């Protein structure tokens, strides 16, 4: 019964709560749909946390997504041993940078008074959950290799069976507990998206990533700010 709840009930609950929660939060509390940047409060340590974490998690996330979407293509890729090794080493490397980045972010959050002052309870819950998730992920990569292949053979069919509303769980129930915990952790993260800073995935417009840099310009040189050539300079403004 517990297995059924975790691998059938929880995923559906997570997606329903996530969808309804995001719509509710966007309509009722639109100004909170943000990751609430703390770059103004502390910037030096942020770089060593945010950059490795975000790049790493994007690579790892899209790797999982690709294997879920095109399992046969993944198996075909893995059929050449060198390609399997390249895939696994790449995924493991970016997974490690996620761990390094997350550890740096957590250290910064707990040791910088200015950041601690804006930390919410859900920030701590989320970071704890992410830490467990990435540790389990790395553990699986090393301790139950080669995940890229068995994910395509066993977990992709399971996830598709959920999408088709016809859950097939026998194989998932038989997996080691670390892998089960990683799956449950993933659904839990989806579940809490609307209640945490993870809502920033859905910040509209979605061209957020590709937008021009925001420039914070201190109007120091009164003459320079009257020069129309400085206003939209793509590099460091001359008046700052």
């Amino acid at each position, binding site marked *: 019964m517990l297995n059924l709840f975790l691998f059938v009930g929880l995923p559906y609950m997570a997606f329903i709560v996530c969808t309804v929660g995001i719509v509710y939060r966007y309509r009722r509390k639109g100004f909170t749909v943000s990751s609430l940047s703390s770059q*103004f409060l502390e910037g030096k340590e942020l*770089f060593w946390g945010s950059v490795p974490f975000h790049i790493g998690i994007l690579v790892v996330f899209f790797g999982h997504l690709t294997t879920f979407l095109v399992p046969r293509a993944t198996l075909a890729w893995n059929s050449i041993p060198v390609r399997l090794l390249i895939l696994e080493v790449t995924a493991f490397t970016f997974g490690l940078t996620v761990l390094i980045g997350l550890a740096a972010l957590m250290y910064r959050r707990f040791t910088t008074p200015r950041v601690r002052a804006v930390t919410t309870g*859900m920030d701590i819950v989320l970071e704890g959950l992410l830490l467990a998730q990435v540790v389990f992920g790395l553990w699986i990569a090393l301790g139950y*290799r080669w995940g890229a292949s068995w994910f395509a*053979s066993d977990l992709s069919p399971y996830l598709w069976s959920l999408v088709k509303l*016809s859950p097939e769980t026998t*194989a998932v129930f038989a997996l080691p507990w670390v892998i089960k915990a990683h799956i449950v952790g993933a659904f839990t993260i989806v579940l809490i998206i609307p209640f945490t800073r993870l809502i920033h995935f859905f910040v509209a417009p979605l061209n957020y990533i590709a937008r021009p840099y925001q420039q914070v310009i201190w109007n120091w040189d009164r003459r320079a700010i009257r020069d129309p050539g400085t206003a939209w300079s793509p590099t460091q403004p001359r008046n700052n």
Partner: protein
Amino acid sequence: MGSRSGHFLVAGVGVAMFLTASIPGRAFAQDGETIFNGTCKACHTIGGGRLVGPDLAGVSTRQSEAWLIAFIQHSQTVIASGDSDAVALAAEYPGISMPDWPLSDDQVRGVLAYIQQQESAGPAPVAAGAASLQPGDPVLGRNLFQGTTRFDNGGPACNSCHDVTHEDVIGGGILAKDLTTVFTRLGGPGVRAIVGSPPFPVMQRAFQSRPLTDQEVGALVAFLEQADAEQSLHQPLDYGLGLLVTGLGSAVILLGLYSLIWRRRRRGPVNRAVFDRQVRST
């Protein structure tokens, strides 16, 4: 989290409980014969003699129904409890452990009824896939094992989950058992039966609707026999250690690369320069 958000969570839990309770036991909606063929047949015969595990003819007269239900559902737990019959069975089949089967009491009773029915019908043929086949090609088997030759029906390569000590294949997966000594442990017919008709849920799902051909089964069995016999001659690389070391090294390089790409980044708070200027200007 606001109170309304809390309501969403409560409603979600309700939906999840409903969904959990309303899942019909799809995997379990099978009768004794179907369960026997999908779960037991790879390792057991009914009157056909010992295969990977014991011949099940007369099993209901050897053990009580309650014992059989407990053992089929949780064999390792029963062995660990010190039950003398279970311990004797484990000693008779060293290195082989029967998986726990997620079957209900009634489903196990269905399987036992099917076994009794088959006993009265006479000895059954040996398990599917265990019939005598032409000796396979170990080189083809090696290529199939590590995926350089794909299975005709598109199944995943064996090394996704299994390792084998052999220098000509890359280190295999460690999700499932190491197969280096599988030939010694299970014998030829046992290996052939399991490869041809996998009884383990994870392997079953991976090859569901993508079964191996007889030629592929024969080739894999030949490769595993060869690997077992030649294991002392092979000293393959440690791929687990390689993955760890390469990953750590690559992560360090990646961090250096980030530092280089963002070398013009601000190294302090955005407003530090502003404060500094104010200090200078006073």
